[in-house]
């Protein structure tokens, strides 16, 4: 059994509002998998159903391994201190009390503060430390870097990569495309309660089409162009600029970011 998680026909609705309309996907052991989607797409509901925090209407969810769940901010009492939270969660999980994770995650200096006094970044890192108690096989991260500054994001990304290198299965929900692109092996894009795409970032690019993005820098300013035919467009653009005697300072060609693909996919689904 290589699946860490297998989801079949997962359905969930609130009243008459269908949030998940029958999700099917698997996550392999050791994989970093992202659930992507705009707000209200059903990311958190899907995660919470898998985590066992939310009851679902129908379908089956199989989880092979011990789960560690990074809860969102505001899921600890306001006056608890980080070390107390670690001690409490360790006792609940019958795990050895180990404060070194607080140090590794850079919140050692905040251990004397109460939860309410921690910054958003410190809270996120504390929740990650708590999720890692008991050495789980599968780690769930819901919007792990939301509200963090650039430094905090980089630091948390490093921790996630470390976990991946230890062979942990990581499932994260996010709408940060850059984060997903840099961290994840595979992604599932949720749209209106169903999976619009499931595969690697490269597969998504293939599915969306052979789009290229050309960025040209001149003394007059920067311009960006989108094309399916890179050769013809480049020749035409360079020829046009040469004719106008505009000097090219820099030129870049890329296949677009995951974010661009995601927007495109969401647009197609809406149409």
């Amino acid at each position, binding site marked *: 059994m290589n699946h860490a998680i297998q989801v079949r026909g997962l359905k969930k609705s609130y009243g008459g509002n269908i949030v998940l309309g029958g999700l099917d996907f698997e996550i392999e052991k050791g994989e970093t998998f992202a659930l992507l989607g705009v707000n209200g797409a059903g990311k958190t509901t899907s995660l919470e159903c898998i*985590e*066992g*925090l*939310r*009851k679902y209407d129908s379908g089956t969810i199989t989880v092979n391994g011990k789960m560690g*769940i990074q*809860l*969102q901010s*505001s*899921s*600890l*009492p*306001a*006056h*608890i201190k980080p070390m*107390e939270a670690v*001690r*409490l*969660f360790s*006792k*609940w*999980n*019958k795990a050895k009390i180990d404060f070194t994770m607080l140090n590794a995650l850079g919140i050692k200096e905040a251990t004397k503060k*109460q939860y309410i006094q921690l910054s958003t970044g410190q809270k996120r890192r504390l929740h990650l430390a708590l999720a890692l108690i008991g050495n789980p096989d599968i780690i769930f991260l819901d919007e792990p870097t939301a509200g963090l500054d650039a430094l905090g994001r980089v630091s948390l990304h490093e921790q996630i990569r470390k976990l991946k290198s230890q062979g942990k299965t990581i499932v994260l929900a996010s709408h940060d495309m850059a984060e997903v692109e840099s961290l994840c092996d595979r992604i599932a894009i949720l749209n209106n309660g169903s999976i619009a795409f499931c595969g690697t970032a490269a597969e998504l690019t293939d599915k969306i089409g052979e789009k290229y993005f050309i960025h040209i820098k001149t003394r007059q300013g920067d311009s960006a162009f989108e094309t399916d035919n890179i050769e013809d467009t480049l020749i035409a653009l360079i020829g046009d600029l040469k004719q106008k005697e505009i000097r090219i300072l820099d030129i870049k060609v890329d296949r677009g970011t995951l974010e661009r693909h995601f927007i495109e996919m969401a647009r197609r689904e809406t149409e």
Partner: protein
Amino acid sequence: MNGFLYGVTLQWKLDIRSKSLLVTCYIVPLIFFLLMGGIFTSVMPEMGSTIIQSMIVMSVSMGAFIGLPPSLIETYGSDIKKAYKANGVPICLGLITMFLSAFVHLMITCVVIVLLAPILFEATLPIQLPFFFLALAIYITSSLSIGSVLGLTVKNQAKLTMIAQLVFLPSIMLSGIMFPIEFLPDFLETIGLIFPASWGYRLMLDNGFCFENLWYLTFIFFAAVIVCGIVLKKQKVK
């Protein structure tokens, strides 16, 4: 068990850090005791024999109806309850730890009242202290069970403040701790009997520990346990 005991100890510390519980379980009841104890015993010296019970009723009512419910809303009305589920801990654990912690806080306040009242106001100590403390424990348990129902069923703090006052004020005014219950009109006396305060007050008086004063408090406790159980089960299913 180790985790459970740590949870109760930690909750006790969190309650102290949370100013609202510190105020409702210690500061206000003890200030009220110091002020009103002096006034009552000087205006009506015969109150010396009941001042301990009266002040305890006020303290327990305040701690149980105004102090405990906001902590429960903080946990069960927010994402904190997910921490229990995520760690495979029964969702009722939060309620139990908060209940026990509040019990200890209120018991400490009551012990302070019992110790200080004879010194400060020449109050008479209860004749049978073991029965008195047993009655006190039952009364605190019964009052906290109502506080638990309030904290689990009322969804927001503003509503809770209003409803808690609707339980707290009649408990104080109609329980016989301010003036003898016989002076009240019959319908107010009857209304007073709805709340545990008048029953707890009588139970703690000398020779008051009997089934006649005990059954209603026991009934309240078990009714509250059932209500809390239903509410928590609903939360778990969600």
